[in-house]
C-alpha cells in the first residue's frame, strides 16, 4: 500500500477516522437524550408538547442533512454568531455535532415511539391504577420496556449516524471523507485503493457494531 506507507498520509488517515468516532460518540449521546425527551413529548397528554415533538421530527427528519450542517455553520455561527469554541476546528466540530444530534434525535424519537407501541396498553393502565403520574408511568414502566424492544433499530440509527458524520466535512472538518479527497488529490494514480481502504475501514468498524446490537437486542428483549 504505497499511499499509506507514508507516515504523514497514515497519520491523516487515522486522524480522519478519529474525528468520525468523536463526532459519532458525542452526537449519539446528545441524540439519545434529545430523542428520549422528544418521544416523551410525542406521547404526552399535553397538546403543545405533542405538537412540538411532531414538528421537530417532521422538520429535521425530512430535511437533507447537508443543509442542516450547512445551516449550523452559515446560520447558527455566521448569522446568529453562536460560537461553540474559540478554536476554529473545535467550533466546526461542535457545530457539526449539533447538526447531527438534532437530525438523529428525530430518528431516535420515532424508533422509541414505535417501541412504546409494543408495550401492552394494560401496563400503562395498571400503572395509572396504582396512582403513578404520567411521567412516572413513562419513566418507570413504559420507556424501559420500549427501549429494550427497539435496540436493534437504534443500532441501525447509530450506524447511519456514523456514516452521516462524514457530511460535517462540508464545513471544513478534516474527517475521513475530506482526508480521502486530499489523498486522492495527491495520489491520483491510486484512487481505487484509497477508496477501498476508506470504505473498508467504515465496514470494519460498523459490521461488528451491527452484530453487537443484534446480540444485545436478543439478550435484553422483553420476554412476553
Amino acid at each position, binding site marked *: 500500500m504505497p499511499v499509506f506507507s507514508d507516515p504523514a498520509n497514515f497519520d491523516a488517515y487515522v486522524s480522519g477516522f478519529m474525528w468520525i468516532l468523536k463526532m459519532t460518540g458525542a452526537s449519539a449521546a446528545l441524540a439519545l437524550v434529545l430523542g428520549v425527551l422528544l418521544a416523551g413529548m410525542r406521547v404526552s397528554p399535553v397538546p403543545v408538547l405533542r405538537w412540538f415533538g411532531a414538528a421537530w421530527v417532521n422538520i429535521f427528519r425530512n430535511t437533507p442533512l447537508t443543509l442542516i450542517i450547512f445551516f449550523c455553520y452559515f446560520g447558527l455561527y455566521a448569522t446568529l454568531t453562536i460560537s461553540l469554541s474559540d478554536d476554529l476546528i473545535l467550533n466546526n466540530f461542535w457545530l457539526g455535532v449539533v447538526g447531527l444530534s438534532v437530525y438523529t434525535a428525530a430518528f431516535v424519537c420515532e424508533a422509541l415511539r414505535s417501541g412504546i407501541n409494543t408495550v401492552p396498553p394494560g401496563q400503562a393502565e395498571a400503572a395509572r391504577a396504582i396512582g403513578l403520574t404520567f411521567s412516572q408511568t413513562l419513566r418507570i414502566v413504559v420507556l424501559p420496556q420500549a427501549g429494550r424492544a427497539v435496540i436493534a433499530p437504534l443500532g441501525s440509527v447509530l450506524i447511519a449516524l456514523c456514516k452521516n458524520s462524514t457530511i460535517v466535512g*462540508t464545513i471544513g472538518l478534516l474527517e475521513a471523507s*475530506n482526508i480521502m*479527497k*486530499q489523498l486522492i*488529490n*495527491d495520489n491520483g494514480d491510486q484512487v481505487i485503493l484509497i477508496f477501498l481502504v476508506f470504505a473498508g475501514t467504515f465496514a470494519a468498524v460498523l459490521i461488528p457494531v451491527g452484530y453487537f446490537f443484534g446480540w444485545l437486542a436478543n439478550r435484553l428483549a422483553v420476554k412476553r
Partner: protein
Amino acid sequence: MRMTRVAATAAAAVLALTMAACGSDDDGGTGTGSGTGTGTGDTAATGVIAKAQSGTLKVGVKADQPGLGLQTGTAYEGFDIEMAKIIAKGLGMQESGIQYVTTVSANREPYIQQGTVDLVIATYTINDERKTKVNFAGPYFVAGQDLLVPTDSTITAPEQLDGKKVCSVTGSTPAKRIQENYKGAQLQLFDAYSKCITALAGGQVDAVTTDDIILAGYASQQQFAGKFKVVGKPFSEEPYGIGLAKDDKASCDKINEILKAAAADGSYKAAWDNTLGKSGTPAPELDTSKLTNCA
C-alpha cells in the same frame, strides 16, 4: 402454452443477435472513419488532437471563479473558457464542439487520468508533483498566492496571519502552503471558494487565500464592491498550465504552438480584455520562452 414460450424465447434470441450484429456494424464504421482521418493527417494523431478531429473535446473548467471560469446557467464564461476556445480553434474544431465539465481543485488529476475530461483549463498550477501524473502545456498566465481581506483589515502580509482564521479550498495548493509555511494561522477549509467569500463577508474568517487573480475576480463582483481588498503581496508563483494526459506529448506541443500563435496575433490579449481585463488590469505579456517542454 409451451410452444408459445419456446417461440418467444427464439424470437428474443434472434432479436438479440440482430441487434448485436448492428452494434458490431457500427463499431466497424467508426473504426474505418477514424482510420482514414489519421491517414490523411500530417502526423499520427493521438489523444487530444484525435479528439479534436472527431469534433468534440471535453474541457474541465472551474464553475465558481468570476473572471476565470464561472458557470451562469448552462453557459460558462471567463479567461479559462476563452483559452479553451482559442485552443479549440487552433486544433481546427468548432467552438460548439467543446463540452465543459465542472472540475474542482481536488478532482483535476483524477479526471485527466480517468479520461473524464481531455483537457483541464481550471486555474491549474504547474508543479513537479502534478507533473508526475499529468502533462502540462503553457503556462498561459502566471499568478501568485495572495490574501483577500476586508477593506478595513490590518493584515498586510502573510506573516501577520498568526492566530488569524484563513479560508481556502480542501486539497488546493494555497491551502497546503498555509499549512506548511504559516503554521500559526487557523485554516478553515471549504469545498469551494464561493463559501470562503461568504464566510469572509460575514466575518467568520479574517482572510481568504488563493491566487491573486482569482481573488481580484471576487473582489470586483458587484455585491462585494468596496468590501474587500487584495493585499497585493504575492508570496508564491503559480504558473497556470493546461493539463492533459501524461503520455500525450504531441498534443501538448501542439497546444504550446497554438499559445505562441495566440500571443502573436492578439487573440490572447482579446481574450484577456473580454474577461479579467474588464476590472481594469492591463493584459499581461504571454512569455512564450517559458512554455513547458511537455516532457
